[in-house]
């Protein structure tokens, strides 16, 4: 068994990225993602890679876009505010099918729409993965680089303040991932061949004048990703009358609360989406099929609840039991992030004392 080391979630992500072959990182410091930049500035030079502390988020994503276009596994991290600035580049590089890994160490969970819908133009999608432990962050980071190259599509790791700053035991087993074809699309110099342009209209030698056809080519893979890349954890669903849906570190609070609710005799189960896009629609629907109600705990004003509603399609009531939760720091660790509070809200919905 590989050695297990005590490290913060940020460090786990950096180490996993290094092991996945990430050799270019650019970023701009912002809490709670700054540790990733700090650690990358140490690790990248050690492995022959490059780390750039850019002068802005817009510049940083431009650098990552360029490095990834040259075929180098490349990563960027920020928090929602910084990710906002990158949206134009996200849309362009997604449509040009350039694989990158982006980490959002979100403040609370207010960036769910930003991550799963995006703020850029056109019909692009990010694959979004939300870990709930440092170990899972390491595993999903390795997977993220693989999926990005496999689908030639950006992948986002959705974390938060707690993931960034909680230390846990982590090990780095080499993941069993299929071999990927060489990146023949990459811009690696034009010696002995025609130059390549990376564009939403395809590579230069076949540059399409049919915009619709070119973009349809990009978006065709979305349905394949939806059918192949759903990831989800669930528990206690067999006889669950109430199903609680939550993601990321708050999902771990919910899992803990559901175990306590079970000890108190409540028939409650949970579904924790690991991939936020593609959303585990079938897992949520089948959990809801035998339940009286579905509760959604998320630290925002109600975002993932829309995906839950689209999964449940009105068959049972879907109730929000989370909300916006900040202390004075504004980093998303507020009073709602509390197992007893979650238990109380579960009890209220379970007993029907709350009108759904």
């Amino acid at each position, binding site marked *: 068994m590989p050695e*297990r080391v*005590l490290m913060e979630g940020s460090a786990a992500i950096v180490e996993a990225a290094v092991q996945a072959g990430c050799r270019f990182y650019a970023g701009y410091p912002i809490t709670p993602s700054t540790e990733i930049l700090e650690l990358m500035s140490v690790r990248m030079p050690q492995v022959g890679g490059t780390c750039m502390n850019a002068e802005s988020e817009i510049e940083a994503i431009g650098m990552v876009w360029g490095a990834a276009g040259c075929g180098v596994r490349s990563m960027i991290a920020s928090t929602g505010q910084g990710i906002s600035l990158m949206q134009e580049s996200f849309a362009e590089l997604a449509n040009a099918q350039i694989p990158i890994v982006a980490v959002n160490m979100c403040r609370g969970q207010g960036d769910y729409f930003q991550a799963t819908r995006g703020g850029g133009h056109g019909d692009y999608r990010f694959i979004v993965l939300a870990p709930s432990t440092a170990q899972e962050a390491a595993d999903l980071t390795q997977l993220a680089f693989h999926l990005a190259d496999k689908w030639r599509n950006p992948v986002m790791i959705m974390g938060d303040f707690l993931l960034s*700053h*909680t230390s*846990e*035991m982590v090990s780095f087993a080499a993941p069993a991932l299929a071999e990927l074809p060489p990146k023949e699309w990459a811009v690696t110099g034009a010696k002995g061949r025609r130059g390549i342009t990376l564009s939403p209209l395809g590579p230069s030698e076949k540059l399409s004048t049919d915009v619709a056809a070119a973009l349809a080519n990009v978006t065709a893979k979305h349905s394949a990703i939806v059918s192949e890349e759903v990831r989800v954890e669930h528990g206690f669903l067999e006889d669950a009358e109430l199903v609680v849906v939550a993601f990321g570190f708050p999902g771990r609070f919910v*899992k803990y609360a559901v175990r306590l609710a079970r000890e108190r005799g409540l028939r409650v189960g949970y579904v924790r989406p690991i991939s936020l896009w593609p959303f585990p629609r079938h897992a949520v629907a089948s959990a809801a099929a035998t339940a009286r109600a579905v509760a959604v705990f998320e630290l925002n004003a109600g975002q993932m609840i829309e995906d839950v509603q689209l999964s449940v399609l009105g068959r049972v009531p879907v109730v929000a039991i989370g909300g916006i939760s900040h202390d004075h720091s504004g980093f998303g*660790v507020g009073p709602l*992030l*509390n197992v007893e509070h979650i238990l109380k809200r579960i009890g209220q919905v379970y007993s029907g004392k709350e009108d759904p």
Partner: protein
Amino acid sequence: MEREVIFTGIGGQGIQLIANVLARAAAKEGKEVMLFGVYEGMMRGGSSESTVVIGDDVIQAPPIIPFTWSVLAMHSVALEAIARKLRPGGVLVVNSTLIASVPRHDVQVVEVPATKLAEQAGNLMGAGMIALAAFCAVTQLVGHGALVQAMHDSLPSHRKHHAERNVAFLEAGRSFAQTLDPSALAHLQNTLTPGSPH
């Protein structure tokens, strides 16, 4: 089983450092560990808190826990709220030099005059290490040897010159625990709950 320890005190007492030392010591002993610290935006005097959860299997507890197996309190600033999380029968180790009264009477209280012992040992800054070693001797959560090694590992390179003194502080804490009534100590150790069943 998971055993939780919440450290509470004020900035400057080394709360984050001693929590880190305990977490690393448990990791050295092959345990699963989770560590999460929070502190106010001031270097001295603000509330400082850290949570360590130790178990044999992958830790299920979230970083902010509703109940705790034990509390190590160096200062009273946040003690009342944190002591409410103690399960009945849990251990509350207090720095009795600075904490005059304890807010719970259904828990096992151990008084360690850590600040006074640190002063006697020549440096007030040693109170945290003294209290940590006494806490570990009383609860037998980790061995003293692992604690000493973990302290060395926890110091950044520019603080390595404090290592020798910290070894002495850890020893002072362990020695203090040996002065406690052995039958009371045995009772405490025998009645400690195994931890939360996760």
